[in-house]
């Protein structure tokens, strides 16, 4: 039965069918959630006692940076799957996620800079977390350019997987950098173990914005993966039926 499951999930055709069914739900639900979260956060949550209203960019910045790391983690898992079990769909997913990952990292960096101007007085600082996130952004760009520079796709898949795994050392550095070094960037307010240090009236819209934003980004990933699959499997007959 496990083998049957494996064959089902590893097949691009089944993936497309599954994804086509799920997409409308994911899109509309995420859109609703994120809109609610934004309205709540932007209009109804109280102003921060230190930062005033400028903290509200958190509702964009935090989900974006969370996603930039999660998407890389997803790529790393896909890379491991591809290298160990040679599932081609995993390689397509890496190529699909990379541009989206670059996009959210960019959003995180820009929104972080904008937030920094009123709060820190500067829009850039070479501290550990910000620099590592910049490195993450460069890695995303490197992955995209590496894959497109190869004409032989099978080779390109292997290279990009190796590269994703090598670059994975950066993720723990980003996550833990605010704990290891005392830096300008504030430490994590939400951890798995402790009570959150952020007020509930700001916390709930933050949660919803994380879920909503993640959902919307997942929609983008789905669209991107469909493009990749159709591109790469273009010679197969079922593609012509679905496009």
């Amino acid at each position, binding site marked *: 039965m496990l083998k049957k499951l494996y064959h089902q999930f590893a097949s691009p055709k089944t993936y497309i069918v599954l994804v086509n069914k799920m997409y409308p739900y994911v899109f509309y639900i995420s859109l609703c959630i994120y809109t609610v979260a934004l309205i709540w956060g932007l209009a109804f949550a109280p102003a921060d006692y230190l930062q005033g209203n400028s903290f509200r960019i958190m509702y964009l910045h935090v989900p974006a940076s969370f996603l930039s790391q999660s998407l890389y983690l997803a790529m790393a898992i896909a890379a491991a799957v591809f290298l160990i079990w040679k599932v081609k769909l995993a390689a397509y997913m890496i190529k699909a996620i990379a541009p989206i990952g670059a996009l959210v990292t960019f959003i995180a960096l820009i929104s972080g800079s904008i937030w920094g101007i009123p709060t820190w007085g500067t829009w850039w600082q070479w501290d550990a977390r910000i620099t590592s996130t910049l490195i993450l952004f460069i890695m995303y760009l490197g992955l995209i350019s590496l894959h497109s520079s190869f004409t032989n796709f*099978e080779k390109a898949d292997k290279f990009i997987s190796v590269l994703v795994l090598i670059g994975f050392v950066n993720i723990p550095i980003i996550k833990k950098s605010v704990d290891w070094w005392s830096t300008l960037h504030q430490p994590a307010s939400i951890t798995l173990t402790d009570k959150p240090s952020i007020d509930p009236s700001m916390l709930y819209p933050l949660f919803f914005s994380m879920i909503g934003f993640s959902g919307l980004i997942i929609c983008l990933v789905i669209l991107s993966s469909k493009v990749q699959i159709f591109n*790469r499997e273009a010679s197969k007959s079922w593609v012509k039926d679905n496009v």
Partner: protein
Amino acid sequence: MSDSPMLEVKNISFSINQNRLFQNLSFDLFKGQAIHVKGANGSGKSSLLRILLGISSPSKGDIIWHNISKKVFLGHKNVLKNYLTVADNLHLHGLDAAHPEVKSMLQDLNLHNKTELLVGNLSYGQQKKLALVRIFLNTSNVIILDEPCVGLDDQTRKLITSFLSSELNKNKSIIYTSHIPLELSSKEVMVGGF
């Protein structure tokens, strides 16, 4: 020729970027036998050789080698260092230029008085001959060659062909591609045809 094949190739297919080069190719290779791989340019002959060497792998099908200690290969690249002398290059391949066997081979190929020349200063044909020295002085029982006689004059080509025949008599097997016809008793395998 012994009864069990040294190499069995079963229904292999190979494609690059979803373009199929060849499919359902099967053949056997016996000891002391030569196989001449034929096909048009770009039909996948070199790819087939690389699959047999283990560098690439086929998209489908099996390759089974029996009792093989080593293979030796000469392709389009000569595996020679241009900035080293002929003797140094032989040293890199584990051959001593002063050894009598090596010396006689070099003499046959007219390279014996050039051992202290830099390989970069040799002509194309001379470099090719030097590359072939490594093949003939090797102890492996499978020889795989990709266009071995390109750039060689007629006399040298006949010499190389006679060397290859004597290798076959020593019960070694040869797989080669060559646009130039060689007078070697070999089985033909066609590649491509799409």
